[in-house]
């Protein structure tokens, strides 16, 4: 399992190729990007704040649990922080498995867990000002 937190952009295919996972018949990737509009506001940028030590620990826990549950052969998560302009990549989640159903379920489970458990906070910068994006709460805390 590879977890990376970084300010810089990444090339999703190069990162996936670098892993060279044997025995995998299916690979599913999610790439999240900064949208250019949100409820009719034009988004110029996103400021992403995070809690580095916890982010790393939490992504590791999420990845390990999902890898085990969905029998994934490998998991790669890259998440950026700092100021990102619209259309820039924010996050990459790529998973490998023998069969496609596991790969889809595993990738989606990691992305869903990121949304509700990983300590990132986003502020949308638009011409009208800066607005915090409403966040989510870990399901197990109600």
């Amino acid at each position, binding site marked *: 399992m590879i977890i990376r937190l970084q300010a810089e952009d990444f090339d999703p295919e190069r990162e996936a190729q670098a892993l060279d996972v044997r025995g995998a018949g299916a690979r599913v990737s999610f790439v999240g990007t900064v949208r250019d509009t949100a409820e009719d506001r034009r988004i110029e940028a996103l400021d992403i704040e995070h809690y580095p030590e916890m982010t790393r620990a*939490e992504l590791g826990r999420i990845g390990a649990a999902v890898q085990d549950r969905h029998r994934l052969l490998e998991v790669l998560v890259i998440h950026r922080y700092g100021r990102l302009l619209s259309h820039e990549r924010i996050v990459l989640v790529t998973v490998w498995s023998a069969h496609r159903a596991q790969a889809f379920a595993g990738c989606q489970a990691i992305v869903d867990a990121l949304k509700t458990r990983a300590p990132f906070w*986003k502020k949308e910068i638009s011409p009208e000002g800066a607005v915090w994006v*409403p966040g989510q709460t870990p399901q197990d805390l109600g």
Partner: protein
Amino acid sequence: MITIRCFAQVREILGCETRELAPSHTPQCASDLLKAIAGERAADLPMPLLVAINCEHASLTSPVKDGDEVAFFPPVSGG
């Protein structure tokens, strides 16, 4: 000492990024620390307020002890 860290709106509202507090001699939970650093501004904080202890999700009623790192932050939006 107990290290307290605040993120996002909690950091902005309390004007506090990191703070160290001496542990009390009586049992403490996370909400006791919040009262100590927020005072009356606790009412301005976003709800629900999330808590992590030593980089794991916890709750306001979770016990804290000397050496812990306790973080307060609003709901998250990773991904």
